[in-house]
């Protein structure tokens, strides 16, 4: 397609630049602040350098006087800095460990009525259409198919298959997932299904015609279906979408769990 190697390479470089720009723009929430940051990053280092030079030349007469002392001091400070960095790294490790243990403890206390096993999310589906996660506990930890998986905020999904050390979990946001739920205030029964285009919303369907839906109402599992125990928090009603036919109306439920940041889970052993 290209006549020579140079124009071929140019085409590839342009494509790479376009791809990076598309990725940045499609994922950044505020494009204006991105431009501001980029412009600042481009200009500010030079500006800072110029201001530093100006200050040194015009006002600071001691700048050239004791350069040897400064060098020694600088060396000592560098050593001190590396020691502090080392301590900081150790502290950060302890902090992370502490946070994980607290999270486990909090989860276990919250769902004390269930016998649970804690686990980590180690992998997520590589496809755009499936929302299955893989956790680091399996048969060796007593995990079996159809066990309920929860997190601190609420329901995550259920185990669909198990190996010795891992388990696959179909999350409630997966399009193949379907949960029988209850509205917490008026106890109306609904069915919640995952959608393709969102990692934080599920669709509440089959709403009874006489049911009063309230925005902000909480949704929890009904216990029907044999997989999920009753009373686990699923989310809150975010939007009610009405149609001409009242039987077709549906609601969008914001999931309690943030699936983009989900790391720690509990598998409920006895339903």
């Amino acid at each position, binding site marked *: 397609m290209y006549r020579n190697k140079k124009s071929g390479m140019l085409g*590839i470089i342009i494509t790479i630049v376009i*791809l990076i720009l598309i990725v940045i723009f499609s994922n950044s929430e505020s494009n204006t602040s991105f431009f501001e940051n980029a412009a600042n990053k481009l200009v500010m280092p030079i500006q800072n350098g110029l201001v530093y030079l100006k200050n040194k030349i015009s006002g600071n007469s001691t700048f050239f006087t004791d350069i040897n002392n400064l060098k020694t001091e600088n060396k000592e400070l560098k050593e001190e800095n590396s020691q502090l960095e080392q301590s900081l790294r150790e502290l950060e490790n302890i902090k992370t460990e502490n946070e994980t243990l607290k999270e486990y403890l909090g989860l276990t206390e919250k769902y004390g009525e269930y016998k649970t096993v804690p686990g980590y999310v180690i992998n997520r589906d590589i496809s*755009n259409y*499936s929302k299955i996660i893989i956790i680091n506990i399996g048969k060796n930890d007593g995990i079996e198919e159809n066990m309920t998986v929860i997190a601190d905020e609420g329901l995550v999904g259920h185990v669909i298959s198990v190996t010795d050390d891992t388990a696959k979990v179909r999350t409630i946001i997966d399009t193949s997932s379907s949960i029988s739920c209850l509205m917490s205030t008026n106890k109306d029964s609904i069915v919640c299904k995952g959608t*393709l285009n969102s990692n934080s919303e599920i669709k509440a369907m089959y709403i009874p015609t006489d049911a009063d839906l309230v925005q902000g109402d909480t949704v929890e599992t009904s216990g029907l279906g044999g997989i999920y125990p009753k009373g686990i928090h699923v989310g809150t009603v975010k939007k009610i979408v009405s149609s001409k036919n009242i039987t077709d109306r549906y609601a969008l439920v914001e999931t309690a769990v943030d699936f983009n940041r989900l790391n720690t889970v509990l598998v409920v052993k006895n339903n």
Partner: protein
Amino acid sequence: MKKVFINIALVLIGFLIYFLQANFFKWFTIAGIKPNLFVIYVLFIGLFGNGCMGMAYGAGWGIILDLIFEERIGINLFGLALIGIIATIFDKNFSKDSRITIMFMVFGSTIIFEVITYFMNYILYAANIEILNFVGILIIEVIYNILITIIIYPLIQKFGYYIENEYKGSRILTKYF
């Protein structure tokens, strides 16, 4: 011996693609949509390898992906094996020298793979059908796959012709004369 090295290299590339797809492309997305590098991988093996190489690699990686991510084996296995077969058909009917042709092949293969796997998901797991959302995701995924193909095309072409010489060296010219 060269064929053994080629196959080892192809398997290693497959693993590299898996780790890229599972880690790097989790955050390097276009509006949250990831590309599907396995479609490009199987397509190129089918184009440059011998008759059943594309299908064999497609089936192999399909089984691995099904074992890792799916409830049952079948969806990726069938989809990627089919891409391998389609690539062999493309090889017999189109030239691989044109970047535009390759882009159209990636366009078609990505659409075929995703449509088939989506409807197999519907049949096997009773997934909800959301045509509009599906088409929206698919368009972005196809564009992403094409952009990646444009970037890596020279590399693929070099390695591809090396594979082709090794596997069907004596038969290349008969196609043109």
